[in-house]
């Protein structure tokens, strides 16, 4: 019954094109809400029921005949995350899209809503489809619909270019997944994720896994195959960036985890590969984030960092599987998956508020901002909570997942051999460094954007965004606080996913759940303590003289907002340390010794993505050069082209004669 409703919803989504422009939004929202209700109900049933599998046969006319939606706990978990983020993103979009309403025509809006709906449907289907062919179809729909969403502002040429770049990279990833699935089909006869265990038990695991890992990793954004990510996220409208960063890139994680649960041999090698790549992703992502000036690009690099953290958890889980270390399996995978949920919450929140800032100021350049907290207090508070959560600071949700991963590492240190101890210790140090760098980055982002005083005139007209953009975000805040303070409620289901999928049961003496509840207690104490101190302060201040005065300027009496620390100066001492790796370029006019009254001087810093230069730009340029050389053949004379055709035919004859083809 529900399945039929679900399919009719898929069909009804085409109706967006037929509805009058003013009602399109509500129509799309209605379809989405019904679908959210149905799929959430499916997912919740899985978590409540003792049965681990629920198969819902659906025959979609345009797909393979054996199309099946299989929902296990892993899928159910992802369905819930998708539902939450996508709904809130769409509610937020109502206010965000308003300024565009008059400038874009009806068709553009239809395409936008339609793509949004189908991005949502395709993500649902990706996480529930097992058949290989159908999977590739929905994976493709996901890439196409998100491409259409990214190029919403396609009047700007750079955005179109970014969109195309994104589309190409997604298809490279798809080629890898296709290859991997074909290899599996060739030896088992079925092209399906269910055939993976059979394949892996009889063949070498590493090659096929690596193909999958690269294919899904491009979507997820692991370094060095992340290069689409920092470009596409700033280009897309903010509700889309929130959804893409919050859940779409997690589909890559879903794919990797789904494959991992089938892998049988070579687990140790695979685990170590994932761990090392993840550590690099985490460090590189946050290191690049610090030197960005574009608020949304900064957040995009943080997505890479968080994918790294998730990957560290997953890598640990795989190492645990190799060593039959049950605690490590549960803590590693559990921490990684919980971080998927956490990241979808705070990263979406941060993107929405970055969008609100853009909405109010029409710039994404951090250097121009400042003092926005006074103009947009609620947005600032949301952004602050998001920042604290993403830095993994207690008592918010990010801490809990990072904590699980840390504890997994610390616990297995004692029993590990020499090489594993070294690996674990360096991962711990790296994770600690990532945490420190994240604090550095978000003190900068929050401090420069929202605090101090305005650095440019554009801030004067800034105002708080409308309520419809703020209200949905309270839901995210609720979950961030709930996971931080009532962690057990969320940790237990996540662990049950791992137990079910890997087939392990928590060993006796597994104290983590107890610890998690202790964290809730001490987190509660902290909140109470803060409240008490602030109340005391409030009453204390009442009967004291409180004076307002200018900021202390060391005796300098003509301070101006231009004297404030900027994002660049804040990152300067860090950049001096990290520049050998990041190669940021600084160009400036020097002041000569004789110049007592220097004129206007220029100072510029340019950061570039070293990996992007090496991985995409350089090969593409080389290829273009090669093509230019071949273009000599393109003479424009018809006689030459007939000659080419003739040579080609001759070649075919000769080769066939010698039995070469």
């Amino acid at each position, binding site marked *: 019954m529900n399945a039929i409703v679900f399919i009719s919803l898929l069909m009804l989504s085409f109706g967006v094109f037929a509805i009058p422009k003013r009602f399109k939004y509500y129509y799309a929202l209605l379809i989405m809400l019904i679908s959210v209700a149905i799929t959430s109900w499916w997912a919740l049933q899985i978590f409540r029921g003792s049965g681990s599998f629920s198969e819902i046969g659906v025959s979609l006319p345009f797909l393979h005949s054996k199309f099946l939606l299989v929902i296990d706990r892993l899928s159910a978990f992802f369905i819930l995350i998708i539902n939450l983020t996508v709904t809130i993103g769409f509610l937020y979009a109502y206010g965000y899209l308003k300024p565009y309403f008059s400038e874009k025509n009806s068709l553009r809006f239809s395409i936008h809503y339609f793509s949004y709906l189908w991005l949502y449907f395709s993500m649902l289907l990706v996480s529930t489809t097992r058949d290989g062919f159908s999977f590739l179809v929905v994976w493709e729909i996901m890439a196409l619909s998100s491409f259409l969403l990214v190029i919403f502002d396609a009047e700007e040429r750079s955005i179109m270019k970014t969109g195309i770049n994104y589309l190409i990279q997604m298809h490279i990833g798809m080629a890898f997944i296709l290859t991997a699935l074909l290899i599996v089909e060739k030896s088992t006869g079925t092209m399906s994720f269910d055939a993976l265990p059979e394949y892996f038990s009889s063949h070498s695991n590493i090659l096929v896994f690596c193909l999958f890992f690269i294919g899904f990793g491009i979507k997820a954004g692991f370094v060095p195959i992340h290069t689409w990510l920092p470009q596409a996220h700033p280009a897309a409208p903010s509700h889309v960036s929130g959804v893409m960063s919050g859940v779409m890139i997690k589909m890559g994680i879903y794919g990797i985890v789904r494959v991992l649960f089938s892998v049988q041999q070579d687990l140790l090698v695979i685990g170590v590969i994932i761990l090392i790549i993840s550590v690099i992703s985490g460090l590189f992502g946050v290191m690049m984030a610090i030197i960005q000036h574009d608020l949304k690009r900064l957040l995009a690099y943080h997505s890479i960092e968080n994918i790294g953290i998730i990957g560290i958890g997953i890598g640990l889980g795989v190492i645990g599987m190799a060593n039959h270390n049950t605690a490590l399996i549960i803590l590693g995978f559990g921490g990684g998956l919980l971080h998927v949920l956490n990241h979808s919450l705070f990263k979406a929140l941060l993107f929405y508020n970055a969008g609100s800032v853009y909405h109010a100021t029409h710039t994404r350049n951090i250097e121009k901002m*400042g003092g926005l*907290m006074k103009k947009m207090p609620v947005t600032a508070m949301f952004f602050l909570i998001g920042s*604290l959560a993403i*830095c993994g*600071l*207690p008592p918010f949700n990010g*801490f809990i997942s*990072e*904590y699980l991963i840390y504890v997994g590492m*610390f*616990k297995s240190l*004692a*029993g590990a*051999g*020499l090489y594993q*101890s070294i690996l674990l*210790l360096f991962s*711990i*140090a790296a994770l*600690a*460094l990532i*945490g*420190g760098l994240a*604090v*550095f980055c978000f*003190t*900068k982002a*929050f401090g*420069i954007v929202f*605090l101090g*005083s305005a650095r440019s005139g554009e801030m004067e007209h800034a105002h708080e965004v409308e309520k419809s953009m703020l209200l949905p975000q309270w839901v995210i805040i609720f979950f961030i606080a709930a996971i931080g303070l009532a962690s057990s409620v969320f940790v237990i289901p996540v662990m049950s996913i791992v137990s079910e999928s890997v087939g392990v049961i928590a060993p006796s003496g597994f*104290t983590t759940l107890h*610890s998690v509840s*202790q964290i809730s*207690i*001490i987190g509660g*104490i*902290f909140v109470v*303590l*803060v409240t008490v*101190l*602030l109340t005391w*302060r409030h009453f*204390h*201040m009442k009967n*004291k*003289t409180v*004076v*307002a*005065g*200018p*900021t202390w*300027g060391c005796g300098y009496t003509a*301070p101006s907002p231009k*004297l404030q*620390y900027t994002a660049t*100066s*804040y990152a300067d001492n*860090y950049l001096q*340390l990290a520049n050998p790796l990041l190669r940021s370029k600084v160009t400036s006019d020097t002041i000569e010794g004789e110049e007592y009254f220097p004129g206007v001087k220029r100072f510029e810093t340019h950061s570039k993505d070293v990996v992007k230069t090496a991985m995409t730009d350089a090969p593409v340029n080389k290829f273009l050069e090669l093509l230019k050389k071949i273009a000599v053949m393109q003479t424009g004379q018809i006689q030459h082209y007939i000659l080419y055709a003739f040579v080609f035919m001759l070649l075919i004859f000769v080769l066939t004669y010698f039995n070469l083809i």
Partner: protein
Amino acid sequence: MILMAAFFFPGIILRTKSLASGRKGPGVLQPVKDIMVLLRKGSVFSETSGIIFRIAPAITLASIVCAMLVIPFGDDKALISFDGDFLFFAYLLALGKFFAIIAALDTGSSFEGMGANREALYSMLVEPAFFILLGTFAMFTGYTSFSDIFTHFYITGNHYVLIYSLIGIYLFIQIAMIENSRLPVDDPKTHLELTMVHEVMILDNSGFDKALIHIGTYLKFAVYGALMCVVLVPAEWNLVLQIALFFAIQFIFAVVIGLIESFRARNKMTKNPKFILTLSAIALIAFVVVLILTGKLIN
């Protein structure tokens, strides 16, 4: 007990410094008296600053007090103890620091921006050292909470453990110095804003808030002192002896800081990152020591 130790701690540092420089110096309780004076005073707020500037000191202090709860003493467990409580400890202190930093940025002063940025960089760099050290603790004892680690620290009876605990102590002293912005990374007594780290961040704080910040700093010292104490003193010893040793160690710690501050100059600002990264290197030495002790490297 940490509270009591914190009571005298800054005074002892101050006294040591005065004595070392040949002055008589103020009484041991002078800093506490200063705080009382501050608490009685009114406040001046910068026009630029907003709500963050006003709530940050309270949050920072609360984070330090809360972090105190997981520090064990002797055979008794800490008030709250769980696996990986040191993670909570470190991250909660980081939360306090986060607020201190953004409060400094809230004033819109370039000096405070400078301090904020230095503080952020240094605390970021010191993080790996702390975690590597704790990683070695966990590996050595097989436990992952402060209480369990330190009750099992001397249980093996291997005397070489002392080498290890000395490295640990050295690291704790240095980390405490950096976290509290003392010499050689930062000089609390410097008079030039350009060369300050922590002091410049709180330039605009006054009255009640300033008192909270000072209390927080003193408590932090005592917390690190307590950590050193549990590393050094085996948990099986007599309780009275332990309490005596606790205060003795806190006293020695304060005197050591006073002496260091009297006879050392502050590092050049650009040298600080190198100096802090050295700590990670030393922590790695501790790691090697543990590898040997646990028989992983050489059997």
